[in-house]
């Protein structure tokens, strides 16, 4: 499982609002939507940031998420943390699934 703690190590440096920064759409569902208090937001990340960097930024903005075992996706595909990102990409942060 790509969880919260391992992702923190992937993140080297995150800065926001830089010139040329990327804008991501961020989505929450179920427990993460309740914890974040929203179902979506927009996140700015520096050029070259990977998906793990973006996730760490989300966790900084929404610390209530940290109590959950999290999974995340980029553009509707499960992410490992090293995926490169582009403006307009869709990041989703959610708990282990419980459908069925």
């Amino acid at each position: 499982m790509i969880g919260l703690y391992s992702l923190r190590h992937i993140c080297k440096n995150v800065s926001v609002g830089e010139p040329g920064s990327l804008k991501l759409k961020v989505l929450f569902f179920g427990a993460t939507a309740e914890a974040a208090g929203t179902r979506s937001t927009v996140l700015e990340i520096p050029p070259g940031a990977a998906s793990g960097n973006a996730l760490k930024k989300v966790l900084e903005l929404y610390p209530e998420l940290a109590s959950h075992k999290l999974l995340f996706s980029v553009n509707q595909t499960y992410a490992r943390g090293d995926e490169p990102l582009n403006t307009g990409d869709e990041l989703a942060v959610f708990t282990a699934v419980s459908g069925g």
Partner: protein
Amino acid sequence: MDFFELTTDPIDITSVSRRVIPPECGATVTLDGYVRKFTKGRETLYLIYEAYEPMALKEMQKLILQAKTDFEISNVGIVHRLGRLEIGETSVAISVAAPHRRAAFAACEWLIRELKRTVPIWKKEVYADGEEWIEGDRGAVV
């Protein structure tokens, strides 16, 4: 209750089950998952299912492609319900049609196990005295 019958009347089988049947097949196995009234002794009033819909559809499609690679099956149907579900209502139906029933059983069992592990859908259990989003206990999906 149990029942066992002989009948000369047509047997009504669900639209889900029947939609997967090509002429060369002989058996369809269907998993019907539904809302349990009691979970670990606690009474559920109803459930809310929520999905990350476009990703859930992609993951369901991946499961079907994988199942058709790994098992000798002909067709697969998966329908998952969202929103509020009352006790006993079907949350998920998976039907697998195959020339030989063994493959249909194996593929259907694999599909529901993987669906519960990988398809981004979540349920909230609503009890008389509270509610909670259920978090899966399954590991890596990448």
